[in-house]
Structures are given as C-alpha cells and as structure tokens.
C-alpha cells in the first residue's frame, strides 16, 4: 500500500491525518505546530511508548499465529521467542514497565482471554483482520489514516478491538475517557468505510501495569451513525482551521490545555528564547500519519 506524505509538497497544509495529529490540533494549534509541523519530540523516548509498542506487536504476532492455525502453546512460544529477542538489551528504569513485566503482561493477557468470545474476523481475501492499516478520503482534500489492532466479531456483531496499557486503576473512571474520544470515533468510522464493515464501536482491552501485577478489564464504546456524522463535520472544521493557521503562519496557543503538555515549559518562556529551549530539550523526528507507531 502506498504511504502518502502528510503534507502537500512545500506547504504546511496537511492532507493525511491520523488520530494523533488531529488530536494535537484539537488540543492546541501551537502544540500541533511544534509536534507535527516542526517535528519536535522529547529527546528521551518514553518507556511507556516502548512498552506499549512491544505489547501490541507481541499480541499481534500471537493473533496472526493463531489465525494461521497454530495451537495456543505453539503460538505463545513463538510470541515469547520474538519478545525475548526484541527486548534483549532494553534497560527500562521504570519498576512497572520493563522487560520482565512486559513478558508477564503478555502471558497473563493470553491466559485471561484464552477462551475469548471475541474472535478475529477473516477478511474477504482470507487474511485475518489483524493490525490493519487504513487510508480513506473524508473529502477531496482530507485523507484519514491509521492502524487498527483487530477487527473482531463479538456476540455476532463486528467491533474494532484496541488494546491499551496504563498505570491507571481500571474501572468506569478509566473507560469514561473514551466517550467521546477522537481516536475511538475515527477507528469506528475507519472500520465502516475502509473495511466496509458495520462496526458498532470499539472494544477496549485495557491492561493496568503495576509492579506486582497486571490487571485486565474490557469495555465497549459505541458510536451511532449520527455521532459519526457529527465527528466528521467537526473534523472537517478543525482541519479547515489548521489551513487558516497555515495560511497566516500563526498557531495560537490554547493556554487552557497546558497542564499535561510536553511543551508547557517552552510556551511558558518568553517567545524570544523558546527556540533555544526547544533545541536544548527536544529533537526533531517527524511524525508520518501513514506510518505512525501504535501508542499506549
């Protein structure tokens, strides 16, 4: 599959959007400018991202192996063999998210959901619907892109399945954050349009990673037709606003969304010294919505 560039050549006009870049703009145009247009990232790759990425990939390998006919024990061995190799030399200083707790979490997840009623859908080409890439045109100017963990059938209805890892205690307070939610709405829409499947919403398989245990919980976030139409209308408007910012080459700060932002310490400085602080604390790694890694 072709992987289109995010921007129209030589412009700050983004034509391929994923939930990450759209989320940045929705949070704050300045955050979007620093992250997406200029490509600034923290110099230290987060152990949360590394852990989440390995966790996703390991379970994806297991799913693929099972759908290709391997029994649980064989699929689990293959998964662990890959996991031990890929994490060889990974030194996480985090007591909860490290190599040992990663292996524990994968084994415990597969134990917990060994007799899962949610089954991977087999696509019309005979391939299992696992780690699916999507690109589809929302309008002539806007393409939406991303990755879906799995397309599953659960109680005779189709859903997207998305796996999350968190340090947060699981419960209604945790799952409430996904209603409404940019990523879950996009994934539901993608399931319907890109995979032509009447998905009802997203099954969220969450893993709470602690030092002494990994706990699992599952919840479903539904999207109706009208909710998806509303999300689509809103998205088009947000993207059009980004085009106006690009035309003016000015990205206003949303100073009501700074609390958990990586760029808080940049935006809190005088504008004349921000570039120096960015160069000191960040490095440039451009995000491509067509290639974006899975996050936690």
């Amino acid at each position, binding site marked *: 599959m072709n992987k289109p560039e995010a921007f129209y050549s030589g412009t700050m006009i983004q034509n391929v959007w994923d939930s990450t870049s759209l989320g940045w703009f929705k949070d704050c145009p300045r955050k979007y400018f620093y992250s997406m247009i200029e490509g600034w990232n923290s110099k230290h790759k987060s152990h949360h991202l590394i852990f989440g990425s390995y966790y996703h990939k390991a379970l994806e390998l297991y799913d693929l192996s099972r759908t290709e006919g391997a029994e649980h*024990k064989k699929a*689990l*061995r293959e998964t*662990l*063999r890959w996991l*031990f*190799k890929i994490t*060889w030399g990974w030194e996480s200083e985090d*007591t909860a998210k*490290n*190599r*040992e*707790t990663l*292996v*524990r979490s994968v*084994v*415990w997840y597969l*134990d917990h959901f060994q007799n899962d009623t949610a089954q991977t859908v087999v696509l019309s080409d005979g391939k299992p619907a696992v780690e699916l890439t999507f690109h589809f045109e929302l309008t002539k100017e806007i393409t939406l892109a991303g990755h879906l963990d799995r397309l599953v059938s659960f109680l005779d209805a189709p859903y997207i399945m998305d796996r999350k890892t968190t340090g947060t205690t699981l419960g209604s307070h945790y799952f409430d954050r996904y209603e409404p939610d940019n990523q879950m709405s996009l994934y539901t829409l993608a399931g319907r349009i890109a995979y032509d499947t009447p998905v009802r919403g997203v099954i969220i398989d969450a893993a709470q990673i*602690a*030092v*002494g*245990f*990994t706990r699992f919980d599952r919840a479903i976030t539904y999207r109706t037709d009208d909710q998806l139409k509303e999300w689509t209308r809103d998205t088009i408007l947000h993207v059009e606003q980004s085009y106006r910012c690009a035309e003016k080459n000015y990205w206003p700060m949303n100073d009501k969304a700074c609390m958990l932002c990586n760029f808080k310490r940049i935006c809190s400085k005088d504008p004349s010294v921000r570039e120096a602080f960015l160069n000191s604390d960040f490095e440039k790694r451009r995000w491509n919505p067509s290639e974006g890694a899975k996050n936690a």
Partner: protein
Amino acid sequence: MSTDISELFARDPESLTDQDLDTIVAHLQTLRAQFMLGAKTAGTMKKKAPKEKVTNIDLGELGL
C-alpha cells in the same frame, strides 16, 4: 521469582529452548494464580535488594 527464572530472563534469547519458554510460562501462570487468590504483589519480578545488616558502631574507632 526463583533464581532459575531470573537466569532464564538474563540468558541470551537465542539460546532459549522451547522447554525454557514453557518453564517461564508455567512460572508466570503460577504467579497469576496467586494474584487471583489475592496476593497483590504476586507478579513482582525483581528481587528486593537485601537490607544491609545493622551493626553496632564502635565510637572508639572514630578517633574522637
């Protein structure tokens, strides 16, 4: 975590056999069973560093 499991985690992954992997899985499944029975730290993987033994201080050695 027993010494054997720690050693398996520390071993070059290229040398892990199917039996080694099965041993790790069985151990982790046992930890999970303990967790499900209420042991909240059953899955702790790192050994705690032993506390240093406290000994009496001989003030005379300080040369005060």
